């Protein structure tokens, strides 16, 4: 696979393209003992094909819950979620695993690479779970690492790589199954400024080549790189770019 990808095949001339993510009145309630905590209180959100969306919000606002639901790591209490037109809110754990494997590429703040595996094996993991034959798997994983400039690091373990390189490996892993959506949770949170610039440039590149990206961050300058920003406050969505620092600061809780 390569980073330079043509137009999305699902975009048919003259028709409104189907959104990748279509959330409608999503609510999520956690019960902590006898107390019910409403993390999301009716969130509706569309992410179109090829879009680069940043979700911001202070900690405790519900943005993590929202990200988990978009990533099919968690299921909403009520509301519908169509991922590329398919309702995932009623899927079984097995079906959700399949969706996570094929449709979504995750990039985590902690990189979440398995320390005992080489970069190549780490990138191969999603292909392993997709049932791709071993030879094909290695070829595709190598291509993904090559495309991210890590062709000479394939046999290194995560501990032998810098933070920026580790995040590149995890981006390669997110891309290797050619997902519909790249979901990045604070991808620069653990990186120094040089590596942050590097990874953000990589995201720009992915966006330019047609990938759909949803990025969760609390950093302003990171969010500013995206095409559109939404903010989560107290379980509700606030649209638009005009999220000033004062409200952001006021929203931060312990």
């Amino acid at each position, binding site marked *: 696979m390569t980073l330079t990808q043509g137009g999305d095949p699902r975009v048919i001339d003259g028709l409104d393209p189907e959104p990748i993510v279509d959330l409608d009145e999503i609510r999520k309630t956690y019960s902590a003992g006898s107390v019910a905590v409403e993390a999301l209180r009716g969130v509706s959100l569309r992410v179109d094909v090829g879009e680069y969306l940043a979700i911001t919000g202070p900690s405790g606002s519900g943005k993590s819950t929202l990200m*988990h639901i978009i*990533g099919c*790591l*968690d299921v909403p209490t009520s509301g519908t979620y169509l991922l590329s037109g398919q309702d995932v809110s009623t899927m079984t*754990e*097995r079906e959700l*695993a*399949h969706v*996570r*494997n*094929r449709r979504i590429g*995750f990039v*985590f703040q902690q990189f*979440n690479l*398995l320390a*005992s*595996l080489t970069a190549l094996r780490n990138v191969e*993991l*999603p292909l*392993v*779970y*997709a*049932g791709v034959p*071993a030879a094909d798997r290695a070829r595709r994983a190598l291509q993904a690492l090559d495309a991210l400039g890590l062709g000479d690091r394939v046999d290194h373990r995560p501990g032998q790589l810098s933070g920026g390189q580790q995040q590149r490996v995890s981006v390669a*892993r997110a891309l290797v*199954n050619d997902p519909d959506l790249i979901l990045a949770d604070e991808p620069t949170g653990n990186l120094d400024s040089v590596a942050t610039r590097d990874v953000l440039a990589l995201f720009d590149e992915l966006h330019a080549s047609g990938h759909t990206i949803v990025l969760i961050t609390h950093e302003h300058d990171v969010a500013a790189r995206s095409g559109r920003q939404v903010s989560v406050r107290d379980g509700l969505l606030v649209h638009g770019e005009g999220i000033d620092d004062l409200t952001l600061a006021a929203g931060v809780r312990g």
Partner: protein
Amino acid sequence: MNPLETLRTSISAILSRKMRSGLTMLGILIGVAAVMLTVGLGQGAQQTVASEINSLGSNLLVVTPGSSTSSSGVRGGFGSATTLTLSDANLLADQNNCPDISAVAPIMSSSQSVTSATSNWTTSLVGTTPGWLPVRARTVTSGRFFTSQESSDGATVAVIGSTTASELFTGSPVGQSVTVNGTTFTIIGELNTAGSSIAGNQDDTLLIPISTFAERIASSAQVGSISSIYLEASGQSTLSAAYQEAEQALDTAHGTTADAADFSIASQASLVQTATSTSRTLTVLLGGIAAISLLVGGIGVMNIMLVSVTERIREIGLRKALGATPAVILRQFLTEASLLGLIGGALGVIVGVIGARLLPGLISQPVSVSPVATVGALLVSLLIGIIAGVYPASRAARLAPIDALRME
């Protein structure tokens, strides 16, 4: 995810925690080796007992008196009655009555102090007939055995076992004399060396003619009766015929029926069975204790798998986020637990086999290793791994990916 990939993942998980995996396997290893060695020891002991009984003579039948009932109504055990007589022995030796019995040896015995010119020794004094040699499959290495004539005439001659001979004499015992209970016997022959068996040291004995025993040695209660009659059937195939002939002849002579006989006849097979049943009970007992240690090993596997699931909760979450289904996670942990069991079991079998080689040298007891028990031990350890893995694996499989990922 194909089985090969599951296996690869499990092996790398086991290898990445070498110390812990090794200790876990040690539990299974000790259990399997303990089961193999105790069962092997028991089987070895049974085989020894069986071969010792068979060495007493081939195609042997032993007639013993029945139980006695005292005037006050107390019943003794088998052998306590004095219902067997020399005439019974003569009856059984009669080829017309019992064509399938090839040799007969009536036995009277007691423990007696034997005195030589220079020494004294307490040994098993046996009164018998020349039939004793073929029945017990023994030979005389020097001198001769006493004749039928001497046997019935009450001659004061004796044949000595090698142990008794070395205790009483320094040189060759043949031609020397010993005194028992005030009677002086001339040693006319020495028996071959037969070694020890469950019947005691077969070389520590002094044989004298049965009539001499009855006249000069037997206590008043013993007079006229003999303690047992050894019979040898003419062949393996005629053993049961010989048994029936002996039973019929004695029933007729004693005026009893088979149901109320005042004697009992035991074959070698039944002797073996009786003797080995004790060691079998012991084997089952010891094997049971060893099996418990195997069970404890299994609990160790379960424990370590539970720790492993807790420890790798993030890894499980990540694998789920990357598309591992609950079934894949379940299989991965089950495979890991089974591997721990199987490898531990295989190492246990190796230790067991080495132990079975070394142990006989240390405790002078044979240890037998049966292939069936070995394969069984492997299968059981695999099974224990699987059973111990089910609960931890299903816990891992049920983990919500988000809860697993959130764990720090």
